[in-house]
């Protein structure tokens, strides 16, 4: 049986910046090969510091990091070849052509000109940027710039893709397009590590998530387990017309409009009990669905603790 190795192994990682800020405090973290992993945390929690240490933009104060079993201190060139990075900030030369940006990036990773040109055509087409290949980067829209950075990161076919808030300030349609692409990439075997503020993104895409608070990992679980940690379940209930709602005063209800209300119910309190009480009001149910983004609540609760 083949054993799955870790894509990232972090042991005792600490970082104190020159101004005295302790960004990371003795972090241990393992990300399995093939995982779709989310790193969650408030601004300044240390997410970007971890990513920048992995990619070599920030020098760690202490600790060890291995990328696919390669120590980044002793084998950093080989380790870097396995990673592709999409940073939070737009960091391309705005005066360069889209095509040049991606072809040059492939060259820095050692792809010869022919391979780089072929790969650029394939990826720019996949990212819907081929038509824009001769434009300079500053002429691109915000969404195109994001796609350009993802294209650039994928040029050398990395086994590990690191995305630092890739869908920040990206419209809904484009965000869903990106999710689809990242899913396909993950399905084809790439390990993906992303940081994001969109918990919907984590719930829909990631298998594992870690929550970082003030430089420490406070939770590292499969996303499903994290959701189970919630004692409350939220439902959105649609009825023909809301009436006699006071008869349900034992439940936590928030009316949205004349037909819809939100129900927050304790897991131990069976939904069946509620459904048994509902007819007493005379309301006729037309739809019941769980409210998504439950992680949001968990995330907020954890950061409060």
């Amino acid at each position, binding site marked *: 049986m083949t054993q799955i190795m870790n894509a990232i192994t972090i042991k005792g990682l600490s970082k104190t910046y020159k101004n005295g800020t302790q960004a990371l405090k003795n972090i241990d973290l393992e990300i399995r090969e093939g995982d779709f992993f989310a790193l969650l945390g408030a601004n300044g929690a240390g997410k970007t510091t971890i990513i920048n240490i992995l990619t070599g933009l920030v020098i760690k104060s202490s600790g060890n990091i291995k990328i696919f079993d390669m120590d980044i201190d002793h084998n950093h060139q080989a380790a870097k070849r396995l990673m592709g990075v999409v940073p939070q900030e737009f960091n391309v*030369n705005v005066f*360069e052509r889209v095509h*040049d940006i991606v072809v040059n990036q492939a060259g820095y990773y050692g792809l010869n000109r022919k391979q780089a040109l072929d790969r650029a055509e394939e990826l720019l087409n996949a990212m819907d940027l081929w038509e824009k290949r001769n434009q300079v980067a500053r002429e691109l829209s915000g969404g195109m710039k994001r796609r350009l950075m993802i294209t650039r990161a994928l040029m050398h076919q990395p086994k590990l893709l690191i995305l630092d808030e890739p869908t920040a300030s990206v419209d809904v349609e484009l965000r869903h397009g990106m999710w689809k692409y990242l899913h396909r990439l993950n399905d084809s075997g790439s390990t993906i590590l992303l940081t994001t503020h969109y918990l919907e993104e984590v719930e829909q895409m990631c298998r594992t998530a870690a929550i970082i608070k003030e430089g420490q990992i406070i939770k590292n679980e499969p996303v499903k387990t994290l959701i189970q940690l919630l004692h409350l379940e939220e439902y959105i209930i649609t009825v023909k017309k809301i009436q006699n709602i006071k008869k349900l005063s034992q439940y936590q209800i928030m009316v949205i409009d004349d037909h819809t209300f939100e129900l927050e119910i304790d897991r131990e309190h069976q939904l069946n009990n509620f459904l048994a009480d509902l007819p007493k009001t005379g309301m006729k149910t037309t739809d019941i669905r769980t409210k998504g983004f439950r992680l949001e609540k968990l995330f907020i609760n954890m950061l409060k603790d």
Partner: protein
Amino acid sequence: MKSKNFIAYLTLSRKEINRILRIWPQTLVPSMITQSLYFIIFGNFIGSRLGDIAGVSYVAFIVPGLVMMSIINNSYTNVSGSFFSSKFMGSIEELLVSPAPNWVIIAGYATAGIFRGILVGLLVFFISCLFTRPQIHNIIIVAIFVILTSAVFSLAGFLNGILAKKFDDISIFPTFILTPLTYLGGVFYSVKSLPAFWQSVSNFNPILYMINGFRFGLYGYSDVNIMMSLMIIIFFIIFQISLIVYILQKGYGLKS
């Protein structure tokens, strides 16, 4: 088969050279105009009233200095400007996160700096042919001094680019140090014509050795010892490379 690092070096050099050629009105033309004015004013108008120096006309005497001045300025500003812009825009991270080792980054930028220095030097040399007929005493010495001097100042520009925190910082060194040293480095005169005290002071100016090495290549005449010139240039190259490698390893100015 080319190694991956060599491909990275070729990629960076090509990218930087393409940039020089793409924005040629900014990178190639200004020196041609400035040096043409020097040839017209100092060489023709004033030089015609002066006698020969070291067996050549005054306008011919200033050719090596003006060519070398162009090489120095262009090599320097190319690397300092381009590297600092990459740092300013954040695009230097493309290189820093890549597996390209430090020597690739240094050599890639330096190659482009040397390319621009030599190209502008050649253009200025061709312009000088409109005013005088420069000789070439020893083409190998000419080539050695041109390449090594542009390497020295490409590396100096690289250092400036790393250490600079704002755009002002990349103009301070050329304005307050490089330009005075170049003008006082025997571009327009032979240091032998200076009083003894100022001759001794001039001997501390490294650019004097570079200009005279090049002048020796053209006319077989120099105010200083050629071997000494070569040693000084090589010293500066080795010293600067060591310093840059150290700074890149420490991440100063680039990593936090």
